[in-house]
């Protein structure tokens, strides 16, 4: 039962990742692209945790944590660059 649920979640988050990629390609402005990249990072975290769950290992949690932190910092840096034209003043 759990295997089917894990595969269902894999399919959902994989489709979500593809839709984010589509949004990055077709977006009109840079703000939408940053938003799509942020969503992509969050979906990638979910996929990593799911992969760790289906393999029964714990080593992917560190990777997920690091991706979460890097995603936050990079989104804030992008937003700040859009806002000020500069990241570290």
């Amino acid at each position, binding site marked *: 039962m759990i295997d089917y649920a894990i595969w*269902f979640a894999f399919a959902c988050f994989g489709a979500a990742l593809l839709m984010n990629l589509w949004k990055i390609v077709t977006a009109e402005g840079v*703000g939408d692209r940053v938003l799509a990249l942020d969503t992509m990072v*969050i*979906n990638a975290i*979910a996929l990593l945790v799911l992969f760790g769950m289906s393999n*029964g290992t714990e080593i992917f949690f*560190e990777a997920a944590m690091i991706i979460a932190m890097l995603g936050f910092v990079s989104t804030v840096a992008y937003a700040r660059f859009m806002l000020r034209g500069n990241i570290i003043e």
Partner: protein
Amino acid sequence: MILTLSELLITISLMLAGVFGFVGSFGLIKLPDPMSRLHAPTKATTLGVGGVLIASLIHALMIEGTPSFHELLITLFLFLTAPVTANFIAKAHIHRHVEKADLPDPSPDQSWAGLTIGEDVQDDAEASDA
């Protein structure tokens, strides 16, 4: 019995997580204007990842028998950072695409974040001249 119950819980939270993640990214494509597009990923996707992490927590505790709390750390971090990123992206959008005249008036001592102080001071000076 307990094993079946925990399997059921894991399955339910995984299904919910998948649906929320899918809806969040679908809303990113489907919704008409940028400010409403901000809703879909930041709320639904956070719930989606939260569901996956809860499922993983129960999985580690009940099926594999090794309790781990890394997942709570990731959940907490995402719940803290998602509103901050949404706020930053909204500020950048206001700064780039919205005119000050289109916004509702802020309360007397404050101005809209994302519009620079210089513009506000200039506008106030013009208003007091007129």
